[in-house]
């Protein structure tokens, strides 16, 4: 069985949450009023961390077992498989969305003449290769990519910092807590990207340390998103930031390195591609492992290619325009679509396991 270290779990969790955020920092976009996107992002992170904590701490009670196996044990083979199928379905949806959004940005900004299919196939096929090799290999790739992502994002913010105005963040909570809380719904809901943490933890070499690493990874991503949101608002102002589809990408376009590098966005695209690659590979691994267990198969690898093909085809049918994505990720839609699953799946599983444990304890006590 594959085994990954706690550090690798932390890296994967960070990249799962942060990869998409590299270009499409959502909080400033979905703020209704005021410059408090970053506060919304922090609140969303706290909510998200709570959910990751629930997923991780219950997973560590049953080390080496995936949520699918736990569902089947907790509520029986039929209901367990249905719940498992929903769980895998959500991860699959996340995979499709990630792949589609990658293509969506590339055709909307830097390469409008290339068909979206080309980018979707490019990313999915590459990630398929990593998913075929498994979690250990994907985690190692993640370890190499992480510093590049951090340095890339850091450099963009550093170069943009001379044009940032901290006054744009004022008045802090000038419209009260409500706009910030409302903004936090999308970042919190986006933690559905970390539902697969349960699967990752089943392969942790040291589950207890892995839980801590997963929480640190998720928190670090959340804090960076919040910091990034503040940076975007300081650079563009809260009104302008709300109108930009891909704020961080646009920020990268705005910065220059002396008179030599006049456009940083293609380099930023490299970093984003690398992050998305690791994310999609991890998600594909999770989906194929989940399906293997749902279908009672022995081997995961034969599923990788068909699932990738399915992802490519369905992701192209997900939406037609960027406006639809903006609507999907808005606080009015995303939290209500994924929220029930995000809270329900780990919550019900934890509850079912608790009931099961109490029953077992009672049985042991009864003569």
């Amino acid at each position, binding site marked *: 069985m594959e085994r990954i*270290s706690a550090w690798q779990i932390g890296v994967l969790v960070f990249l799962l949450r942060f990869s998409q955020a590299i270009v499409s920092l959502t909080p400033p976009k979905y703020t209704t009023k005021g410059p408090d996107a970053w506060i919304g992002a922090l609140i969303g992170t706290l909510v998200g961390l709570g959910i990751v904590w629930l997923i991780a701490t219950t997973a560590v009670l049953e080390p080496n077992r995936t949520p699918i196996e736990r569902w089947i044990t907790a509520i029986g083979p039929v209901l367990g498989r249905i719940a498992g199928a929903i769980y895998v379905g959500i991860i699959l949806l996340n995979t499709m969305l990630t792949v589609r959004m990658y293509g969506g940005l590339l055709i909307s900004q830097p390469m409008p003449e*290339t068909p979206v299919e080309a980018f979707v196939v490019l990313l999915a096929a*590459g990630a398929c*290769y*990593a998913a075929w090799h498994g979690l250990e290999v994907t985690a190692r*790739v993640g370890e*190499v990519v992480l510093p590049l992502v951090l340095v890339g994002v850091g450099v963009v913010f550093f170069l943009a910092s001379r044009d940032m105005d901290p006054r744009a963040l004022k008045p802090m909570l000038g419209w009260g807590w409500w706009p910030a809380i409302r903004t936090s719904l999308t970042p919190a809901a986006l933690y559905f990207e970390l539902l697969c943490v349960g699967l990752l933890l089943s392969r942790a070499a040291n589950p207890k340390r892995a839980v801590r690493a997963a929480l640190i990874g998720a928190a670090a991503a959340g804090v960076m998103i919040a910091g990034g949101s503040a940076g975007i608002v300081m650079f563009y102002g809260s009104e302008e930031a709300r109108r930009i589809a891909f704020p961080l990408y646009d920020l990268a376009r705005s910065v220059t390195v002396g008179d030599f590098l006049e456009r940083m966005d293609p380099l930023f695209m490299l970093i984003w*591609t690398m992050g998305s690659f*690791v994310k999609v590979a991890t998600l594909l691994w999770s989906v194929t492992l989940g399906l293997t267990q749902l279908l009672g198969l022995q081997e995961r690898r034969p599923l990788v290619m068909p699932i990738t093909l399915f992802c490519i085809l369905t992701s192209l049918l997900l939406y037609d325009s960027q406006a639809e994505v903006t609507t999907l990720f808005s606080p009015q839609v995303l939290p209500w679509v994924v929220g029930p699953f995000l809270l329900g799946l780990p919550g019900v599983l934890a509850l079912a396991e608790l009931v099961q444990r109490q029953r077992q304890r009672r049985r042991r006590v009864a003569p």
Partner: protein
Amino acid sequence: MPTPGRRITDRLTGNLAHDTKRLRKVLEPCGDVAFRPFFAPEPVGLPAVLIYSKHNADKALLQREVLETLMIRALRSTPDAEALALVEQGLPVLHVESDSSISTVTDSVLRGNAALIVEGSATALLIMAKKPAARQVAEPSTESVVRGPREAFVEELEKNLNLIRKRLPTERLRVETTRLGKISRSNVVIVWLDGIADNGIVDEVRNRVMSIKIDAVLDSGYLEEFMEDSPFSPFPQIEHTERTDKLASALLEGRVGVLVDGSPYALMAPALLVHFLQSSEDYYERFILATSVRVIRFGALLISLLAPSFYVAITSIHQEMIPIGLALRLAGTREGAPFPVFVEALLMEAAFEILREAGIRLPAPVGQAVSIVGGLVVGEAAVQAGVANPITVVIVALTGISSFALPAYNLAFSLRLLRFPILAISAAMGLPGLAVACMVLLTHLASLRSFGVPYLSPFGPARFGEWKDAVLRAPWWAMLLRPRMARGRTRRIGRHQKPRPPVGN
């Protein structure tokens, strides 16, 4: 005296005529083996035959120390000693072995030693009279350094082992010899440091070496392909060296060496990607210089792999990245160009590779002239003819020069191969294509193992403690522990050795 039976065995019988006949049957067709029958006077008082290789054996030694001793000088006799024991005790030759197997006798004679068989004895004396090899220890030709030892392995295994022993005169140095090759019967030696090398890795190397079935092993390169974890990968997974100090250093890091008789290159396993980017000199120069050079090498690796692809991607798809001045200049040079940038780069790359290959195969002075003059002439002619633009020539030349900055030729060659598919995908898909190609390559590297050790370590899996000797080279006094691939992270350097100026001055 044993009577020869009808059953043919591999053993000597003690019947001199019979044994000689059998050995003649095997060895005489070779054409270079001589049989010298003689009578050894009292106290031996028996007929004997000396068998030796005409070209490889040291005939002067055999004449002086064997024949003259046995035929002219009187041997001192020990009462009741057997004839063979008398001879063995009396011969003034340093290294004498005895064996009763015909195949061993045959093998020893063919390797340049001499065999002495005496009437009545079913055992032959093997006199190690092999002539020393002609080539002396010389400077390494492919791994030269500005500062550091200048000893390279030679084609003679014994000499190579002596060179290692000279550097590591410790009882921990283990040498295990085996013989490979049905026809060549080459001696293959596995060396490691006991207590430092991981036993699992030593066993794995031993198993892989032992399981090789081949007719001949003419160089250590033959074994390399049998021993790799992923034979279809373009990346080398076993390192080779002709430097004795490099092998000694590898052994001190817990790696295992394999030497083959007749090959001046030792194999070292496990081999990680970073090992191919390190040079012996890194450890002989001060750490600041060594670290800078390593960073340059990593840069050279990226340039040699990605520069043409990046150039093609930005000039054909992401022109917005190029500063306006340069973009205008590029547009000017490309006016009327018959080929797209991708084809230009591909043609120039192909031309460069052909020139380089031609330069390697030709004699050194001619080869240099061909590669330098050829490169200049072809590049200049291509620009003059309007087939390529000057910037493409500059990029291709930079790529070629960068690949020479890599210390390992086999890694540089892998990168040369991979450059072409990456170039194609970058031309088609721009920087996203380049990024995905890099990620696929990275995934491949992350999936590789060398004798079970992840190829990308210490970066993936991250082993932060070992970063001190990866891209960076920490000062010697700070590299306290051996790499983890050794048997645990054992200490190699004492604590608190950072030099300080004397107190009180």
